[in-house]
């Protein structure tokens, strides 16, 4: 069960899952959507058009602009799903109109990288 919908929308797509929080400003290329932090478990992967499942956003407040830029550059995830919502991800998704869901612990655990799923 999705616990909460922060930004509404219906999406179907492939899960890209990380078990590490994401610093959007510091570790996501706003043009391509590639993860640039070599220490991150999504390093080298692209998040464009995926359903990005991760615990929560961290770090710079400007990460909200990174999310908005990803959308403008057609490199944004189709949706995001988190364990808990932080202000950077919530506001970035709200402005960029990227559906954002908060998942229950069971649902979060059951989602696997590469799964085809529908949300919303």
């Amino acid at each position, binding site marked *: 069960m999705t616990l*909460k919908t*922060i930004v509404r929308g219906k999406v179907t797509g492939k899960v890209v899952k990380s078990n590490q929080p994401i610093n959007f400003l510091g570790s996501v290329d706003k*043009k391509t959507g590639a993860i*640039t932090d070599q*220490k991150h478990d999504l390093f080298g992967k692209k998040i464009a058009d995926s359903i990005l499942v991760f615990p929560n956003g961290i770090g710079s407040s*400007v990460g*909200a602009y990174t999310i908005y830029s990803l959308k403008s*550059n057609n490199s944004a995830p189709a949706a995001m799903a988190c364990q808990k919502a932080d202000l950077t991800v*919530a506001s970035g998704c709200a402005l960029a109109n990227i559906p954002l869901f908060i998942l229950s612990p069971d649902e979060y655990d059951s989602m696997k990288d590469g799964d085809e799923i529908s949300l919303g």
Partner: protein
Amino acid sequence: MELTEDEEESLNGEHGEALQIAYRILSATGEATDAEKLVPIHWAHVSGVNYNTIGDAGEEFLATLSKSAKFKVRTTVNPMGYDKDSVEKFGLDENFIQKQESIKKSYKKMGVTPSFSCIPYEIYDMPQEGTQVAIAETNAAIYANSIGKLKTNKESAFSALASAITGKSPYSDLRKDDSPTMSIAMKVSEPNELTFGLLGYFAGKVADKSVAISGVKNLDKRCSKSLCASMGTSGTCGKFVLDDNSDASEKVDFDEKEMQKVYDELNTAESGDLITLGSPQLGLEEMNDLASMLKGRAFKKRCLIFCPRAIQEQARHLGYAGQLESAGCELMSDCCTCLTPLVTKKDADSVTTNSIKGAYYLKNSNGLDVNLKPLSEIVRDETS
């Protein structure tokens, strides 16, 4: 979240597009944090000023927004991409400068106080304790909560912008309950500003919203700044308290071993091709101290010092700026090291700094290697 009739109308676009966008953002952040209502805020500090961070999409968004938006409360802003006085030395292209000037213009149009600083708390008087504010710059938000005893969440660029436009913010998280849920025991002896930076990075990783730190008697301003900046980089934690008797349920130690782990994660070079001091920008006392440390000495490498315009002018008046320049430092205002377009792989392979926040972004966003050292060692090793 319950909205008043007026807020509801704004959300539905009845009071113009700018307010609709602002309330859409506040509704999402309010929902995300289980807020019941919006409360008035009395000062906003927005981030998202540097063209290097917000790009074309951000520039265009602000240009459009500024056609109809006006800031309702006093609003200060973060650093931008360069210092106009020295920009020609750095080979930025015309497009960068044009876009950066457009961003500046958009903020001015909305009524900003043109501070271009990440340390507004060193330039302006802080509001009374307990005042609700909305601060996006993470080091300043943590500083405001922890040292200034103000009330802000660790706002995002957009949530603080929305608060600047509406004068409101969701009543949730730290605004409502800021009691620490974790206590960290500081076990490293003789700490300096770098040690506190490493502690902050560790704290940001392990703590959630608010953290107690035990074993620290005194924390001077530069160590506080270092702690706030690194804590903001690694996590979501927005407040710390120094408390040896915290009743927080979870307790962890920060010892030499933990410190080394953080250091090894962020330190990737034996030495740097140039030195940057900033992230956060330096305050007047730090400039004075550094000028004293450098008496009769000069840097053997390029050393960039980032400070607010208001501080540079005071430092010039008091003679510190001249002393620092005589020792080979270049003073830069209105900008900072965090995602600076001024230090790139074209200029250097590695940078020496005492800033953990600077190290993180220089490494991950600028792609440079970083050599971390406390200021005393930088002066010892890099000057003669």
